[in-house]
């Protein structure tokens, strides 16, 4: 089976998001979309500011995990479609690193599926973020 790619080199562009939305105009059984976007925050640690995050992943495993998550979500929720994109490499502060997009006939389905998918992505996908500071030092990000 061909695994669906979710990785994008660098930041996710807002125009990529509007293109994705536009593509759903022909799916006239959709009544609700929910979109989650992760944006890189300028956190401060010991008076040093984060200027970006560099993402790496165990890609083949991440794509297999994502496929399993996708199957679980589609089994649980009556979705029309679901799209997931995650950045790899450097993403600057203020740029987007995660894009999860669910569509359904009714709003509760789209919203709950999207939220559950985001939680699973954060907990289960082998992806790591390295927070880069202005002085080029770094620390490894930790999800809470």
């Amino acid at each position, binding site marked *: 089976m061909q695994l669906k790619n979710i990785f994008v080199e660098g930041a996710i562009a807002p125009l990529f998001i509007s293109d994705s939305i536009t593509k759903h105009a022909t799916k006239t059984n959709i009544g609700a979309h929910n979109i989650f976007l992760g944006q890189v925050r300028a956190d401060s640690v010991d008076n040093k500011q984060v200027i970006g995050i560099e993402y790496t992943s165990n890609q083949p495993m991440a794509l297999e995990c994502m496929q399993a998550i996708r199957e679980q979500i589609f089994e649980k929720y009556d979705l029309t479609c679901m799209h997931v994109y995650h950045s790899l490499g450097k993403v600057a502060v203020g740029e987007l690193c995660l894009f999860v997009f669910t569509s359904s006939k009714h709003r509760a389905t789209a919203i709950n599926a999207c939220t559950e998918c985001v939680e699973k992505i954060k907990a289960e996908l082998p992806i790591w973020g390295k927070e880069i500071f202005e002085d080029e030092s770094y620390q490894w990000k930790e*999800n809470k």
Partner: protein
Amino acid sequence: MDIEILFFGQLTDISGCPSVKIENPGSTEAVKEWLCKQYPGLVGAKFVMALNNQLIVVPQKITEPSIIACMPPFSGG
């Protein structure tokens, strides 16, 4: 035949490299032992291992070719 061991995230700071190839020591337990001897920094480190993309929950035998991934807590998103 050798097996490949991959390091991710902060573990690469300890290993100093993204991957090593070693002779198959036969089991996931033996790999872990070898790793902790080779890279003492891994002893206290929090990480999970995957054998051919499957998380290792119980000790397993390793057949070649195999890839072992050493992965610290995930921080995607």
